[in-house]
């Protein structure tokens, strides 16, 4: 018997490689969801893992690190926050894509 497939619809799901029930400590949204400012999860609202192994939505941790009072420390452990991944942007060399309702620095 020969079957001819005329049409097919693929459905895919994705999630960040993170524990299921975890939320970003800053915005308290799930990692798989967005920061409080973005509408769509995914590459536009990525996660950032610190050398201290604490991770946050990139936009959340950048909002914090931009505060003078943060002293560029991790909100969880107060060690200097440095991005762990090689390819991810760091707070020093890239402005976040979105900077809603804050005045430019």
């Amino acid at each position, binding site marked *: 018997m020969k079957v001819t497939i005329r049409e097919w619809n693929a459905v895919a799901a994705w999630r960040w490689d993170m524990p299921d029930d975890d939320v970003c*400590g*800053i915005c*308290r949204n799930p990692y798989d969801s967005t920061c409080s400012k973005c509408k769509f999860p995914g590459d536009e609202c990525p996660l950032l893992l610190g050398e201290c192994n604490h991770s946050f939505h990139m936009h959340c941790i950048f*909002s*914090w690190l931009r*505060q003078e*009072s943060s002293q560029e420390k991790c*909100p*969880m452990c107060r060690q200097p926050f440095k991005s762990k991944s090689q390819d991810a942007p760091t707070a020093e060399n890239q402005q976040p894509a979105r900077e809603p*309702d804050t005045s430019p620095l």
Partner: protein
Amino acid sequence: MQGKLPDGITLIQADNYETWLVDVKVIDPNPIYQNETYRLKFTFSGQYPIEPPEVTFVRDATHPIPYHPHIYSNGIICLDLLDRQGWSPVHNVESVCVSLQSMLTSNTKKERPEGDDNFVRYNTQRPRDINFMFHDDTV
């Protein structure tokens, strides 16, 4: 705030993202705080949780202001984690309430801060704009 709150902490009002009211009771036996319930008012700015909320005790017919060397009689609280320099955005309403509850639980001095009368009479600043000196780590 999801799930169950710790003992002695009750959410009273959270109708919007501007002002919340939470009642706090001291559970462990401490003669200073027996049979009293204190009411906390949280005021959030649009920058919360990057910026700390403004947190004060409020007084009404059934809620006094607790005695503590770091709590003024007008309800203003001197606590480093509520100040810009001590705040962390991973704090939340629950963790702030637990910190204040434990600050009361461990207190043994039934007194107001030094200069309470003058502060309460003359202070016109909002709590967030006051430069507290965090000099006393013992209470």
